[in-house]
């Protein structure tokens, strides 16, 4: 640049030209920014506002538990719900119910790696019979969600029994912090299916789990987490405890008709399963899991997450203190027949 140019005063025309060029540059940069702008930010695109899962227990009702022996899942489920007070004690005609199933794997129902479709469909029917306005079913599976719900038979079961399946999408997640929690802090949780829900039911099988020792009612809530949730495997017992504090269900169904004794959580062979013929219904998921440990033939000391959840005030390890109603479907059937005769 010459001295002459330096010394030359800028004309009005020249100044206007420069202003216009600068304006065009800024506008172009702005347009480019708008083009690549992510309106949802780094929270996987969920709706705005704080998310809460909360307490879905029925107020004024004491803790209840039923242990039903029988191989017919549908019958056992109905009897178990009846034994804890009947579905009407929990579900009212205005209720919107969310059923959180364990549908983690794209595996067939026979392998017991997911909630059994018979249990899911029967629970939906029970809720409808009680007059529920809306019955939703959801999970955020480990494998591809569409394959999980399809191949496990749960999608079919939900559709045929009049439920609504909420398959996870990125927009269904919202960041959530558990007050006082050390792991669930600003973490994406499957929230959309919880919108307007008044009752929450958990359905899960009884399974061995290579990392946590077992996967039952409490571990089922792991399927509400989004994000890179595998990092929680490093502190699996604490995350299960925190999830138990996050979601307080109306009641849970723990399906021990078949128990995956080995090679969990996926199993793979029928040889991993043992026919245990038990269906548990409980308003206390800790008590349900404490009993479930007996089906897995494991001491509670080998499943620390159950004691942690109990210490956090979620429930009791002493399931006998709930005086669970024990019923054998076969004995009951024989007794009914004898009375009829």
């Amino acid at each position, binding site marked *: 640049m010459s001295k002459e140019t*330096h*010394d*030359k*005063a*800028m004309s009005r025309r020249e*100044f206007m030209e420069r*202003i216009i060029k*600068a304006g065009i540059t*800024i506008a172009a940069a702005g347009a480019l920014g708008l083009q690549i702008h992510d309106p949802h930010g*780094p*929270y*996987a695109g969920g709706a705005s506002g704080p998310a809460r899962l909360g307490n879905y227990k029925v107020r004024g009702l004491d803790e209840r538990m039923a242990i039903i022996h029988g191989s017919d899942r549908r019958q056992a489920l109905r009897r178990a719900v009846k034994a804890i007070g009947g579905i009407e004690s929990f579900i009212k005609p205005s209720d919107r119910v969310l059923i959180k199933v364990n549908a*983690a*794997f794209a*595996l*067939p129902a*026979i*392998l017991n790696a997911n909630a059994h479709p018979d249990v899911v469909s029967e629970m939906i029917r029970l809720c409808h019979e009680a007059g529920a306005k809306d019955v939703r079913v959801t999970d955020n*599976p*480990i*494998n*591809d*969600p569409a*394959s999980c719900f399809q*191949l496990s038979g749960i999608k079919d079961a939900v559709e045929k029994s009049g439920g609504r399946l909420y398959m*996870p*999408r*990125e927009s269904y997640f919202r*960041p959530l912090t558990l007050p006082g929690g050390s792991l669930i802090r*600003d*973490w*994406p949780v499957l929230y959309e299916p919880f919108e307007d829900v008044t009752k929450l039911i958990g359905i899960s099988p009884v399974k061995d*789990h*290579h*990392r*946590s020792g077992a*996967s039952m009612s409490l571990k089922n809530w792991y399927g509400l987490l*989004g*994000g*890179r*949730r*595998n*990092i929680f*495997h490093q502190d*699996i017992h604490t995350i299960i405890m925190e999830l138990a504090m996050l979601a307080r269900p109306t009641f849970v169904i723990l399906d021990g008709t078949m128990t995956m004794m*080995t*090679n*969990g*959580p*996926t199993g*793979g*062979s*029928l*040889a*991993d399963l043992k026919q245990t013929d038990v269906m548990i219904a409980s308003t206390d998921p800790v008590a349900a899991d404490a009993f479930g440990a007996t089906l897995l033939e494991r001491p509670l000391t080998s499943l620390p997450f159950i004691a942690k959840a109990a210490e956090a005030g979620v429930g009791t390890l002493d399931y006998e203190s709930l005086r669970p109603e024990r019923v054998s479907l076969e004995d009951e059937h024989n007794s009914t027949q004898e009375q009829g005769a």
Partner: protein
Amino acid sequence: MNRNRSRAETISGIVILCVLFCLGVWIFTRAKHYNESAWFGRAHQTGETSAAAEIAPDAVELAGEIIPEGYAAMGDEEVFDSETLSDKINGKADLYLESGFASMRARRFFDKNNPETWFEVYLYNMGEPRNALTVFSLQRRKEGRDAPEIGAWAYTAGNAIFFMKGPWYVEIVSSSEDEAGASLIRCAQSLLSSLEGEELVFEELNLLPKDNMLHSSLKYFSSNGFGFHRLDRILAVNYQAGEREIMAFVSVRDNPEEAAELANAYYKFLLELGAESAPLQDTGIPGILSADVLGDLEIIFNHDRMLYGIHAATDRSAAVNLAIRMLNHANTER
């Protein structure tokens, strides 16, 4: 520059600097609030293929001749690496990752005449044969039936077939409750023949007495044997002792000093866990160590560069007898 700046120029400059400053603050704030959870493996939600698709170029494709007659592929092949394996098998991934896992391919095939019936093939590349043996043996189902029609290291268990060859470990799982049928066996045979890898020769087995050995109970720990991180390259196998079974183990170390040191280290590990010393008399085994672990007996000794032991025996006298047999066998082998 000598000329005076106009007021408009000054204002424009200040505005631009303010905008740049705001942009800087915004970028800094966003970076400060980086949320790890947002950057999760979304592959299964978006249908993206894992980057692992580019690994394991030596793997056999799950297509072509391995598909039994009357079956067709149900979808694309899925490929997983150590970062994504848990997206497929969740908590069970740890077992593979601790045992030298390299990659896994999986694919489903359905029966064209009965689309409700399908099976899935899981092909694991474990890097080397002993790693494959680790995952094969540690997951072996007790009710499993040896399947020599497939291979030396193969068994069926209900609806599924499990086998290994070289560094490969394979699971074929059917959706049907029926026993693994001819189609699955044909698939296994075809896959086995297309996999490259030497048949595993396990010389450690010769270091143990043959009588009453239960071959199907064989387990191999490439690392972390019995929960002790230093106990690697452990071969364990059960023996029938009357009504009960007793597990014996052996590991070949680099030299006698290392074998003796490892025996002592494992013994100390047991004591630190709360086990009690349980000295054994008149066994004739030099340097034998033994501990009572919650009522079960653990025996450890070394012979030359071999580390020998009995794990969690419930019958003390049978355990001691087996230990003596192991030492006598070792002396004979020399």
